[in-house]
């Protein structure tokens, strides 16, 4: 049994190198259960790679990922991923399956939950993301915001302990961003542990307890959103914020 007081996630000295390019340099991070952490930084600063190293879609070059008090290894990763939901920038819904089937696929095939139970749970999850009437729609029949909400429901289907969001609103038309952020806000209020890479500074400020500023693969600055957004210590943070907030 994991110690309930122990942190949920501990990254220690995480490095990732693509060829000669250092994408992540010595990242260390601790997250407690129920915490919402915002990950900000320019494109190419390593936000996505950091998330993908946590559930080993990328293999870290060095460093360790401790999750629920155990190291994530290549052998354990299939089990760990059941506990780590991921939402992608470009949704990656399964186009040959309906919204409901997208949500129920993992429970049915990974956990072998009977179809009937999986479906009733799936309907509940779709209700949670406010898509009750779209259960039988195929992804191509849904708007971008609806697709991303189905993707969130899919990530929730195994009831994971940690949710990773990889710029979930970046591929959306501006008018569709709100509905996705609203769902994410609900999740935060329910006490979900979330690590959110995003360019939505307003959302970060409002929902996150902590913000990390990533620059050149390093955590350059870290702190409560109030402090990072209003009184950044680093010049680069200030420059970045000036760029994105004045946009």
């Amino acid at each position, binding site marked *: 049994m994991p110690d309930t007081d122990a942190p949920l996630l501990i990254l220690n000295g995480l490095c990732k190198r693509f060829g000669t390019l250092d994408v992540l340099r010595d990242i260390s991070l601790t997250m407690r259960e129920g915490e919402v952490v915002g990950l900000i930084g320019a494109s190419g600063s390593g936000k996505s790679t950091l998330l993908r190293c946590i*559930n080993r*879609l990328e293999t870290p070059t060095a460093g360790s990922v401790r999750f629920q008090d155990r190291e994530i290894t290549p052998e354990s990763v*299939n*089990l760990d*991923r*059941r506990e*780590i*939901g*991921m939402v*992608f920038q*470009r949704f*990656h*819904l*399964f*186009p*040959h399956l309906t919204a409901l089937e997208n949500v129920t*696929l*993992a429970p049915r*095939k*990974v956990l072998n939950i009977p179809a009937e139970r999986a479906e009733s749970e799936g309907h509940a999850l779709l209700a949670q993301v406010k898509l009750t*009437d779209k259960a*039988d*729609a*195929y992804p*191509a*029949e849904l708007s971008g915001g609806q697709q991303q909400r189905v*993707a969130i429901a*899919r*990530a929730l*289907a*195994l009831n994971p302990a940690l949710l990773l969001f990889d710029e979930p609103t970046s591929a959306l038309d501006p008018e569709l961003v709100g509905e996705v952020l609203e769902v994410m806000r609900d999740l935060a209020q329910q006490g979900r542990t979330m690590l959110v890479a995003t360019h939505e500074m307003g959302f970060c400020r409002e929902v996150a307890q902590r913000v990390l500023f990533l620059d050149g693969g390093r955590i350059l600055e870290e702190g409560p959103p109030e402090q990072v957004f209003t009184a950044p210590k680093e010049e680069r943070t200030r420059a970045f914020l000036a760029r994105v907030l004045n946009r």
Partner: protein
Amino acid sequence: MLPDPSQEAFTSSLRTFYVSALPRVGRCDPIFLQLTNLRLWLSLMSIAVLLHCPGGARAQSSLDGIRQRGELVIATDATYPPFEYVDGQKLLGFDVDLGNEIGRELGVRVVWKQMAWSGVLGALESHKCDVIISGATITDERKKTTAFSRPYFPSGQTIARRKGDTTVQRLQDLKGRRISVQEETTGQYALQKLGVPKDHINRFDKLEDGLTDVVNGKSDAAVADLPALKESLRKSYPQLELTGGLFTNEYVGVWMRQREPELRDAINRALGIILVDGRYARLYQAWIHEPLTTGILADLDKNRGAGTATDAEVDRASPQSAPPKTMGGSSTDNSPHFTINSGLIRAALPDLLRGAKLTLVLTALALLIGIPLGLAVALARISPATPLVWVAKIYVEVLRGTPLLMQIYVIYFVLPSLRINLDPFTSGVIALSLNAGAYISEIFRAGIESIDTGQMEAARSLGMTYGLAMRWVILPQTVRRVLPPLTNEAVALLKDSSLVSVVALSELMRVGTELATSKGAPTTIYLAVALLYLCMTLPLTWVVRRLEEKYQPISRPRPRKGAVANA
């Protein structure tokens, strides 16, 4: 091709037909219903009309034409030593020397055209050659639609058996045994007349393949012309021996079109001179390796009437008499004519349908094995396990990079030396499946690799193993994408399956070739064969198109729900 204006006209009118008809057929929906539709039949009948285009009346005889061109074009299938064969680049043999002597007598150059046995008659019919000199035996059946010169060689059928196999001694012993022959030769006819069932006669395009079959124990004996058998055994089959002596008396002649008496008379005259002035004796000694006896010459002289009699033909060629059904047209010109003979098609249909059935069964089995095989190979090819990748790569490269014909050949003729003896059907199915598997694996690989990598990542991020993700996320999407290229492969396979005829399987193309030769009407038969192939491929493409539509969930209106999403 001979310079012939009517031939030009024919080709261009055929081209016009294709250009105008094909797009029309392509847009029909559903296509195969068109087969019962009058319009398509009408366009098909228009082929028949186009094909029957008399090329202007020319009173000139073919002999005059040959003299004017200064060349005699002779078709031959150079796979029949000692009569004709190729050594290195050179065409050699008894017939070749004889044909050249005939040309010398006519005062013209001889141009040899080499082609498969199944093609020589079509070449004669379409005036792509003047005569055939290819060890062709004079038969009454052949004389119905074509003509022969006086005999120039006495021949007959005899039996080859494995050395010391005393169960085969004479013709009667062949009943109930499996016998190899060269297809549509007098050997085959003689066995059929004897009452040997057709499926006990293994028909090969080349005599050597038939003999290899006997060596491998798949056939019990081979039947062929004595001189050809003797030569083959002497050269490359020491394991076989002749037995039983001649059981037919046959004569070899120069094969020609009917209603060209001037040409035939000229060739008969030339033969008459060559036979007696010592040239024939030299040829005989050189190629048959025996001295020419006066008995042989006397026999040839006595049976000089075995060819086509000139009188009979002059009668038939008179304007009052009805022209023969399948070849030729008016008696005054000698340009190519093609008429579609529906009675002939009706007579041939049961045999053709039997062939079509075998073609379908072979293709279906090859797909049934080839698709799972191809999928397995594709999965191996993209797997992280390096040895598997290499095995898959080698398999694909070897099978894709060598001719299917060779693969069939190796499985049937070469594997027996490793004590793997497969019957023709099994060999054919295995070869077709292995070959199709290689192509299909590339189709699947390309299909899998075309799926966005995000799909695999999304599935893996849900805790699915590689296998589960493949099974439930990647492959279902792949199948939809590969349906069109897979259909392509299925249609190609259906047609490629005709190559199994090399191991004596009577699929549609083989049956068609046989009928075309024996009935002397290649145009009619081949048109029927083409239609039968269409009858098989069109429903297939239609079914697949329906499948594609069914598997397009994005645009498909779904009736199961009251509230249908907008299209």
